[in-house]
């Protein structure tokens, strides 16, 4: 037997061309990660500008128009080019075939195409930012966006339109992959919960994204041809825009949160050395969230002039959609019972997720509840709520997954000590940034304001200081992860001692994922009852 190393997916072929023409889901996942990082920096810089401006009550750092562009670009870039693709297109692409014991996704060429579409859409987005910016808010409400704004709305909606197709392609690919490419013995109820989460997410991606496509298409058409579909001066209905927009954008938030929830299931199972409590209920809850998530959209229109009857129906359904999320949280907690709990860095991120998701999810109830929503709608309370679920939960879940699978993806170990610090810094920085915003919202501070009444300043200063800490935490993470790629210790196959097909193959895996034919012979998360110590311990930094 030669001593030469088997090639893994990273070094099997070298050169940019091999990456740009790859059909390997693992490489495609990494390519998504690179584009997402670029947009994370763009959107994050906008956040820095916003928080800097809001240190003082007067609008003295940016002009009104510049500020409006800052928060719009912040929202558009982070929603469409970070939050929507982060877990599915990076971690899902990488891990899904491995987890089900397949060699690749069902349609590898479609997968590569989805990355190109994503990136081209992203280029249009950058062009929109550079050539005039956009100042409509990420929600593009009409008639402001169609008939009043003088910014690059057409470029922006073209960008969103194009990128939406990458979502549809990814979702389609995942659904077929999960249905058809499972290894022998991998029945539906032996699947890792991350796979269930991505399956439910893919259903949403496939069904909801076409609706935003047609909606932004009509906005573009209206701007270019002055048709009047959403412009009331021409007979159109601006509320129809809101309905169509939110019909996608509400399920979209479940695209953003379901995959990170799947990540948490994987991390909690691994670091409690125990099958997730209530596996079937957690699996079904993902489907329930996806389905119910489609019929709550009008809770964004409670103050827009909905009929009170419709409002009551949507409010009730919104209360209902909280239940499957609560079920997940309770099941994760119950998994700790009689587990053998290890506190490596991914577990820090997972526990942080649970805490922040509790607050984020529960504060959604204040908005689901009609009488209180009248007060809170369009205030900083809403901003705080959605940042708790989108950043505090979704991004933290993404980072947790990135840490968890980093040794598998890169074949290197990152600095464990720094990672734990980063998780704590991010958690604290996040809370200092966004908790004061709940209070600001209750006091009545509206959102999208760059100058405000003096009495709000103390809370804004606290929030901006927190944002600095949060930003530092992200930069720290970026640094030690990047450092580990070149200088990290070599990772074993299974540094965490986790169950799952992805941990049985090399770190990094070979191009075809497995050197053998995986067959699933046990239940999911079949951690041994006598709690054998994991094979190899990672290095500490």
């Amino acid at each position, binding site marked *: 037997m030669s001593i030469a190393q088997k090639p893994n997916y990273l070094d099997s072929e070298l050169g940019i061309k091999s990456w740009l023409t790859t059909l390997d889901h693992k490489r495609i996942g990494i390519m998504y990660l690179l584009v997402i990082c670029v947009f994370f920096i763009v959107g994050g810089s906008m956040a820095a500008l916003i928080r800097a401006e809001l240190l003082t009550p007067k609008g003295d750092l940016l002009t009104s128009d510049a500020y409006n562009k800052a928060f719009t670009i912040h929202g558009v870039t982070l929603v469409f080019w970070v939050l929507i693709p982060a877990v599915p297109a990076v971690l899902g692409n990488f891990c899904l075939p491995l987890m089900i014991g397949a060699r690749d996704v069902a349609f590898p060429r479609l997968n590569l195409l989805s990355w190109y579409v994503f990136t081209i859409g992203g280029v249009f987005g950058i062009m929109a930012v550079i050539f005039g910016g956009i100042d409509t808010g990420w929600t593009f409400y009409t008639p402001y966006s169609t008939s009043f704004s003088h910014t690059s709305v057409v470029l922006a909606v073209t960008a969103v339109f194009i990128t939406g197709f990458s979502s549809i392609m990814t979702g389609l690919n995942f659904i077929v992959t999960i249905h058809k490419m499972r290894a022998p013995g991998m029945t539906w109820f032996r699947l890792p919960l991350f796979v269930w989460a991505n399956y439910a997410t893919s259903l949403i991606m496939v069904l909801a994204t*076409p609706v935003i496509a047609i909606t932004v298409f009509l906005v573009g058409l209206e701007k270019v041809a002055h048709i009047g579909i959403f412009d009331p001066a021409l007979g159109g209905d601006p509320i129809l825009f809101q309905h169509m927009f939110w019909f996608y954008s509400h399920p979209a938030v479940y695209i953003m949160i379901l995959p990170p929830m799947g990540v948490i299931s994987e991390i909690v199972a691994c670091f409690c050395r125990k099958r997730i409590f209530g596996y079937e209920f957690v699996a079904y809850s993902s489907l329930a969230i996806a389905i119910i998530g489609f019929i709550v959209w009008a809770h964004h229109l409670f103050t827009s002039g909905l009929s009170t009857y419709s409002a009551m129906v949507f409010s009730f359904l919104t209360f209902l959609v909280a239940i499957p999320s609560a079920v997940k949280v309770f099941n994760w907690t119950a998994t700790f019972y009689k587990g053998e709990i290890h506190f490596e860095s991914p577990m820090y991120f997972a526990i942080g997720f649970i805490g922040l998701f509790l607050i984020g999810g529960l504060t959604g109830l204040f908005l689901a509840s009609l009488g209180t929503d009248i007060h809170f709608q369009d205030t900083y309370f809403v901003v705080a709520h959605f940042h708790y679920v989108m950043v505090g939960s979704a991004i933290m879940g993404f980072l947790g997954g990135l840490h968890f699978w980093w040794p598998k993806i890169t074949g290197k170990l990152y600095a464990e000590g720094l990672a734990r610090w980063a998780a704590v810094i991010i958690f604290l920085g996040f809370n200092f940034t966004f908790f004061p915003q709940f209070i600001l919202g209750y006091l009545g501070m509206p959102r999208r304001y760059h100058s405000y009444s003096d009495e709000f300043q103390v809370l804004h200063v606290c929030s901006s200081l927190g944002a600095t800490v949060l930003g530092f935490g992200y930069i720290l993470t970026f640094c030690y992860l990047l450092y580990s790629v070149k200088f990290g210790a070599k990772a074993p196959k299974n540094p965490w001692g986790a169950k799952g097909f992805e941990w049985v193959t090399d770190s990094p895996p070979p191009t075809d994922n497995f050197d053998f034919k995986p067959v699933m012979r046990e239940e999911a998360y079949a951690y041994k009852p006598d709690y054998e110590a994991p094979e190899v311990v990672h290095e500490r930094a």
Partner: protein
Amino acid sequence: MSAHEQELHLGHQFEDLKQQIESYTIGMWIFLVTEVMFFGGLFTAYIIYRAKFPEGWVHGHHHLDWRLGGLNTLILLTSSLTMALAVRAAMLNKWKPQVLFLVCTVLLAFGFMIVKYFEYSKKFREHIVPGPLFAHKDDPGQELFMGLYFALTGLHGFHVLIGILVISAITIRTINMRRMRQDFIPVELVGLYWHFVDIVWIFLYPLLYLISK
């Protein structure tokens, strides 16, 4: 793998041909569902605005020629027939009739686009295109109707164009590549797409052309 299967291209990610065929079929159906959602948004806008501007809808549809639209309906229905016959020929391994029917389908689709061209150019000449030059500015309902007309038929026409390209590609492949002639799956899946395009038109035609007073 049988010799038959070896001739057909089996993706490296698939274990066997059955898995590949089933995957492609499910994939195409899911894609068609996304198309339903896409057009569904436009149909929703149509329904809502028709309720708001019933008279505008009536005025607007007078600009449409139901006979030309009817002709297009016949053309598309016939093209669906030729497409189905092409799929059948493919399944029976008769590549020459298959190519013939595919070519007929493409020609019919071209015919559809030509009729569309005549319809559209007439509207441009008569200033019945929504926008600053619209001839009936005092009737916002009519302008909205025409806007939705162009959006719906324009997007549909775009899908017909894509269909022409894809069917042509399959036809050329079938002619040039002997081993492709035994693989009926691509034809069948494109057939599914083409029938969908036809069905969308079946909905569009009465909703746009056949509004009674």
